[in-house]
């Protein structure tokens, strides 16, 4: 009831596949949608936001289907990838004009519009027409328009594009604040290193199919064909390497370029950590042990391939 549910959803554009047989249940929190160009991310987002209808299956958002427009669209806010605005409107007028469609009183409309504009930090520029905005400002005013009616479901297509580092950090903080308030924040992004930073859940797509979904760590654990990589910093890397070569669960050991650590590939992370504890008790001073490939970038490369563009 509280999730975004895709029940065996397929979408075709004529003969062209948009997404195929998608079954998902997306809980509240920040969820990142990653995949190469044409993988079906925008199709999936458009269906969550009610702009597209599935060719097969059904999409239910917190128990409501898009046919119930008056309930459904109050719950959903969507900042699309389309960098387009109605002509001649100022930033404030843009947010306020469409907010009126929700049926708020004039006073409430103004209050909510200002509140959203303040949340994206655009109050000073809100009196200028959107045509004169920079790309980052346009991105932020669209975000303000999407959050102005306080939706429970916020869908954002590449929301960090064009933002400077400060605005990026502020926007990520805003997503996290909205998620902490119990909202679903669904973000498509092609910047994989930010996925770990931003999201609680990840959905990876390729060629119209969901290839993986869940928490990054959980996804990584399920990729058996790629042994886990662990970076170890210690005082005797050569000695440690020689010890590890003899262990069954170790697939590969490489000395780090700075010769102050090792990169180990292991079939069983848990078994390896136990072994490492044992070795550490025998005279090797270990400074740090950290997984080297349980981030979104690595999981993406294993599942979809590094040759694929993520955008």
């Amino acid at each position, binding site marked *: 009831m509280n999730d975004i549910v895709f029940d065996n959803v397929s979408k075709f*554009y004529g003969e062209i596949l948009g997404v195929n047989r998608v079954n998902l249940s997306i809980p509240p929190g920040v969820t990142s949608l990653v995949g190469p160009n044409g993988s079906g991310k925008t199709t999936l987002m*458009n269906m969550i*936001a*009610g*702009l*597209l*209808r599935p060719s097969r299956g059904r999409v239910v958002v917190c128990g409501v289907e898009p046919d119930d*427009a*008056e*309930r*459904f*669209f*109050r719950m*959903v*806010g*969507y900042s*699309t990838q*389309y960098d*387009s*605005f*109605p*002509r*001649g409107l100022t930033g404030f007028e843009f947010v306020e*004009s*469409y907010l*009126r*469609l*929700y*049926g708020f009183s004039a006073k409430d409309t103004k209050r909510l519009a200002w509140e959203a504009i303040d949340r994206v930090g655009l109050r000073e520029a809100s009196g200028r027409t959107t045509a004169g905005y920079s790309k980052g400002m346009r991105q932020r005013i669209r975000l303000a*328009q999407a959050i102005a009616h306080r939706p429970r479901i916020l869908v954002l297509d590449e929301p960090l594009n064009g933002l400077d580092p400060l605005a990026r950090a502020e926007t990520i903080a805003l997503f996290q604040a909205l998620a902490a308030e119990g909202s679903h924040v669904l973000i498509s992004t092609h910047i994989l290193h930010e996925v770990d930073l931003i999201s609680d859940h990840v959905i990876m797509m390729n060629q119209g199919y969901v290839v993986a979904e869940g928490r990054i760590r959980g996804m990584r654990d399920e990729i058996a064909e790629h042994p886990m990589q662990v970076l170890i910093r210690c005082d005797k890397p050569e000695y440690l390497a020689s010890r590890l070569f003899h262990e069954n669960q170790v697939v590969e050991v490489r000395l780090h370029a700075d010769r102050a650590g090792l990169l180990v590939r292991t079939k069983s992370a848990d078994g390896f950590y136990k072994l490492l504890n044992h070795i550490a008790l025998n005279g090797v001073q270990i400074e740090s042990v950290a997984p080297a490939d349980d981030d979104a970038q690595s999981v993406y490369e294993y599942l979809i391939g590094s040759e694929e563009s993520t955008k």
Partner: protein
Amino acid sequence: MTLWRRQILAIMRIDLRKTFFSRRGIWIWLLAFCPEIPMVAHWLFSGGGEHSGDTLGNDVQILAAIFQFFYLRVAIFFGCVGIFSNLFRGEMMDKSLHYYLLAPVRREVLVAGKFISGLAAAIVIFGGSTLLMFPAIFWHHGRELMSAYMFAGPGMSHLASYFAAAVLACVGYGSLFLASGVLFRNPLIPAAGLLIWESINGFLPALLKKISIIYWLQSICPIPMPAPKGTTGIASLLVIDIDPAPTHLAVINLVLIAAFVVVWAALRARRMEISYGAD
């Protein structure tokens, strides 16, 4: 106020601004007010008087010809193409339609709101111009003669009829072009088809004549325009040998046609999806 009324007002607020004040719409204003230019020029340069057949009676006929052959068939027709087709298709091309579709507005309310917005703009522009045509063409006959024509003669009734015809032309053509904007990627193609159909209306059998907008509009106009003797060639395409319907029937039929088309467009709009890429 109920939700749908507030939503219609909100839609009108956005759309009226676009129609009235956008640079793209300047040609519609020019088209609407271009009949006044030769009328005022005639007033300024003819010197007035009864010379060379410049009588009020002649001007009544000239106004009838301009209104029926140019204003209804060209100015209002193309003006409505510009206003009503853009209500949906223009937004699709500007990639801004999704802002409406993401709001909690039922599609029927959205179509109704956009139709009312287009209609309000079209009536202000074309109805306003129709009202202005009277002083523009008759003023040079002098205040006394004009007052006599307007208040003691048929002037006021003619003015009301022309205004009603202009409004109903906006209703009829507007509904068709709104629907074409919902249904077709390129609404100019159905517009061209409709233009041809309306142009050959005079040559059609009685039953087919009635499946048009122009037939009913001609029936509302106060001065029938029979084909001048010896009209041949392209000019004959513009002439309707009219067998007018009663005015009340014409009004009812135009309103019913428009209502049917708008309801149909609203039903089709329920399935409308955003596919800017395909456009």
